[in-house]
């Protein structure tokens, strides 16, 4: 998997989300952390991700990532159930830095239909937000 950062959506808290059609008319969301946020965090040292089956709520923390600078919560963009966790990330945090939109993905969520959802930004809007933050 290798996503085009321009074709996916973002939250104001720097997660990215890619929605696909899943089985039986459901939607599956792949969630990761944006390249901008990972650059700002600098060297990552630890990550905590949810267990399979956990129910997530939009805008609520689903895990946390620790860098040499700080510990930051990861916020779920959607409501739903965790159906897959990137098992190799914990041992290979570099993947989040080198391939944030590919091998650096974090979790997949079966989106609850009609469930809550964070406000999602397209690439251009998200990029503008990041540029403002840098000023």
């Amino acid at each position, binding site marked *: 998997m290798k996503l085009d950062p321009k074709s996916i959506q973002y939250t104001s808290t720097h997660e990215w989300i890619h929605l696909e059609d899943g089985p039986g008319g459901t939607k599956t969301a792949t969630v990761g952390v944006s390249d901008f946020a990972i650059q700002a965090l600098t060297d990552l040292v630890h990550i905590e991700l949810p267990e399979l089956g956990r129910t997530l709520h939009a805008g609520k923390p689903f895990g946390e990532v620790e860098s040499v600078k*700080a510990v930051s919560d990861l916020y779920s963009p959607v409501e739903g159930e965790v159906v897959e966790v990137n098992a190799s990330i914990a041992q290979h945090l570099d993947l989040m830095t080198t391939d944030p939109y590919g091998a650096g993905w974090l979790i997949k969520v079966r989106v609850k239909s009609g469930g809550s959802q964070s406000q999602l930004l397209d690439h251009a809007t998200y990029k503008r937000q990041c540029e403002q933050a840098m000023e």
Partner: protein
Amino acid sequence: MRNTRSTELIFELSKPGCSGAHLPPCDVPLRPVAELIPAEALASKPLPLPELGEPDIVRHFVNLSTLNMSVDTHFYPLGSCTMKYNPKRNERIAAMPGFANLHPYQSDDTIQGMLELLYRSQQMLAEISGLPAVSLQPAAGAQGEFAALLVAAAYFRDKGIKKSVVLIPDGAHGTNPASAVMSGFTTVPVKSTANGLIDLDDLKARLNDGVAVLMITNPNTLGIFETHIAEIAEMVHEVGGLVYLDGANMNAILGITRPGDFGADLMHFNPHKTFSGPHGGGGPGAGPIGVTEKLAPYLPSPIVVKDGGRYRLDYNRPKSIGRVRSFFGNTGVLVRMYSYIRTHGPDGLRRISENAVLNANYLLSRVKHFLPVPQGDRCMHEFVASATRIKADRDISAMDIAKRLLDYGFHAPTVYFPLIVKEAIMVEPTETESKATLDAFAETLERIVTETPEQLHDAPSSAPVSRPDEVRAARQPMLTWKPTAT
């Protein structure tokens, strides 16, 4: 040189057969160890303890001690930590046998002097904070925070009020959310404005009946006094919440304003910062807390009380959250605090804060021309400069500057905190430094920013260890020394 600057571990210096102790011949009957200790408790081979003669041991530790930077050897402008000089008078007082040789199991009647000192300490902290009830028991500032939030939780539980949220500004010390979560609350961040103060609109949006406590540091971690503090406290009180003051920055306001007067309901003190207790080594420390009258019944037990002319430890406090520390906490630090407060008196304490603020503003005015201070021209006891511009222009980071300062004989300031300032360099000179020291520090900083990036990336070059690999240390920590296989 290597002999005197050796950082080898004592295990690596070991020479089999060496010893610093010679035991006299045994004068009781010898019995095999297997007869005295059950087989399953016996080690299969001797422990790999280091073997050295006494001179080698003494040289090892004395040489290591000379590698330290401390307030006794260097200027130490570590922001948020108030690394003021620790008067040696405090040590003399704390070492007096009547304090130093007490045993915690002595009866109250035999420790009246110590109890009087603790009682008066409670009163002095109440006067300084404007919060009438004080517990001296917590063993550190962070534990004081934790204990105070347990007090808040006990208060709401006792009153049958359901509240679960603690609001924490985004510039707060990391201990704040940790204390809140450990006390059973959930945390919600509050944004800061571009000029470094709490965003009142954001605060308003987050306030509701579920808010138990707002934790606030004032002056805040940017060294700026929250000018709307009275209004902020009122907003929190209107929804039935409590205001917790993180007292880390009390060195800026002693005798000038009081947390109790600007609306705080609970707070902690850091005696090692504000009242010149020794820093370091992870303790023993102290983190007294002060609270309003209505929260007093929930403070940890025991509290020192005075009955007539006699002092005693009061354990009969049914609503108390109980003990947070064995015996009475770390009284040695409290004796130093008492000595410091009594040495200065009320007017002296005010002068301490005035001079701490003056020193910080003087240094700010000398530094801002080459290291911008984003949140303005004036500060309280500390300020936060940013290396963002020099990083973009010349690839010199806050870390590079901090490391290079060590080569020039200055301890580094705090860097990369608070998180809301990029490439933060947080400088707190304290009141105990002379103008000459502040000038020398400012001139050194100015010189460093003109050095080449290559020079700075390799700094420090004079320290026995240059730059530890912090990422590897965090990802693969090796916390136990193991002998290398031979």
